[in-house]
């Protein structure tokens, strides 16, 4: 791993973002819309349901903010790859002395930067409008954040592999893949609400489910559940290894089938 090359690739994305203010729409606008719409809806429900719904605003806003950590990490990988496709620069990168691992690590770095921008904005607005302070979760926030970051990277590599496999026509998968799992990973509701019950086994096999369950437990009882943390971490290691394998074998297959250049110049 050559960090000079990784930093050069990260640099390129930084140049790209600073040169294209419209990218802010994606980084700031849509997350803000989510935060405002769901935040106001929850306030309305809370006012009308009185105390029968405990912690709804905190659950929902916590879910929105932490989901965005996963989503931005996934986007960092998948959309960075698409940026190279859209600018017809992919070939220049693949014929340069860049290892696949260096390319992927650079997109991980871009994911972290995207998260910092989006989540900081969301936290600020959530605090100002709803007095929601995510930092009341204390140090528990760090393992939640890291686990969602890892899961986002895994989903990013899987999205990129799918785009490599099916070509540019499948580029909408870069946005869709995280939402394939969103209904089943208990982002906004407890796992017990997922029906039929057998889907809960599937949900428990997903790392984010443990993060969101853990988040709600911290908010409700102030206790950090080590069981959920353990399973989120173990599953993430498995997911990360599997998605890295899927990505590298898809890339190798794309080279074998001679599709990389068609893909890069279409």
């Amino acid at each position, binding site marked *: 791993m050559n960090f000079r090359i990784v930093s050069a690739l990260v640099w390129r994305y930084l140049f790209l973002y600073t040169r294209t203010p419209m990218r802010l729409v994606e980084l700031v606008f849509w997350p803000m819309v989510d935060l405002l719409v769901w935040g106001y809806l929850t306030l309305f429900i809370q006012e009308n349901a009185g105390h029968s719904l405990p912690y709804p605003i905190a659950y929902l806003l916590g879910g929105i903010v932490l989901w965005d950590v996963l989503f931005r990490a996934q986007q960092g990988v998948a959309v960075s790859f698409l940026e190279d496709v859209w*600018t017809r620069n992919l070939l220049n990168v*693949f014929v340069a002395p860049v290892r696949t691992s260096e390319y992927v690590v650079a997109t991980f770095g871009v994911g972290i930067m995207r998260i910092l921008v989006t989540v900081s904005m969301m936290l600020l607005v959530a605090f100002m409008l709803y007095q929601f302070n995510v930092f009341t979760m204390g140090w528990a926030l760090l393992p939640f954040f890291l686990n969602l970051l890892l899961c986002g990277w895994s989903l990013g590599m899987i999205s990129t592999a799918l785009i490599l496999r099916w070509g540019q026509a499948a580029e909408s998968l870069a946005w869709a893949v995280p939402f394939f799992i969103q209904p089943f990973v208990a982002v906004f509701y407890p796992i017990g609400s997922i029906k039929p019950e057998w889907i809960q086994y599937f949900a428990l096999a997903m790392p984010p489910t443990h993060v969101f369950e853990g988040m709600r437990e911290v908010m409700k009882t102030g206790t950090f559940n080590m069981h959920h943390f353990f399973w989120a971490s173990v599953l993430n290691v498995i997911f990360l290894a599997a998605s890295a394998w899927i990505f590298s074998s898809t890339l190798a297959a794309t080279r*074998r089938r001679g599709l990389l250049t068609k893909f890069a110049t279409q």
Partner: protein
Amino acid sequence: MPDDPPIVLTAQNLTREFDGVKALDGFSFNLHRGEILGLLGANGAGKTTAMNMLLGLTTPTAGTIQVFGKELQQHRVEVLSRMNFSSAYTSLPGNLRVWQNLRVFARIYGVPEPKKRIAELLDLLEIGYLHDRVTGQLSAGESTRVNLCKALLNKPDLLLLDEPTASLDPDIADKVRKFVRRMQKEHNIAILYTSHNMRDIEEVCDRVIFLHKGRVVAEGTPEEIVNRSEQASLEDVFIKIARSGEVEE
């Protein structure tokens, strides 16, 4: 021959099949240091497939590629750091400024004193005025020369140029040809050059290989091939090969 310059690139029996159809069939050649080798053929002859395999973008079905005496597949990163590539069909990110694109690639290739090297190359190509311009707003000629700048950043020992004069006006195409020749003479770079423009080939290439349906059908200097085929020009040879697959009457 003992006086031959060292071999930079060796392709042996390169074969590539797509769905049972051979795009390249037993293609072998050597490229020596300081030599410009033209790869010619009609559309579908196998030039692009060969180029892609030489760049490590496509895996050969059979055959081997050695660059600087090393297997390309096994020493990809090491080999690519001493090579570079420019094509009329790729571009640098259009929303970045020219200097930003070049700085990124200078860093990828580990170019010492990148600012100085970029300024030097832009001046050599007479495009110093493009330094701060947005890449996507350049003309075809300017864009080609910026791509050439990128391709020369790392002072490559082997340069692959895929139709570098495609869509250029005669004046700029002439400048590009002269520049390629100058680079080869001054820095002894080995260059593999593809083009559909026979004037390019006659002016630039020391030796050419004609491909037809994935196989080599003629090889030699442009003059040798024209004489052997009893055609009036290299362009006529090209047309004859494209239509009949044969060089000689």
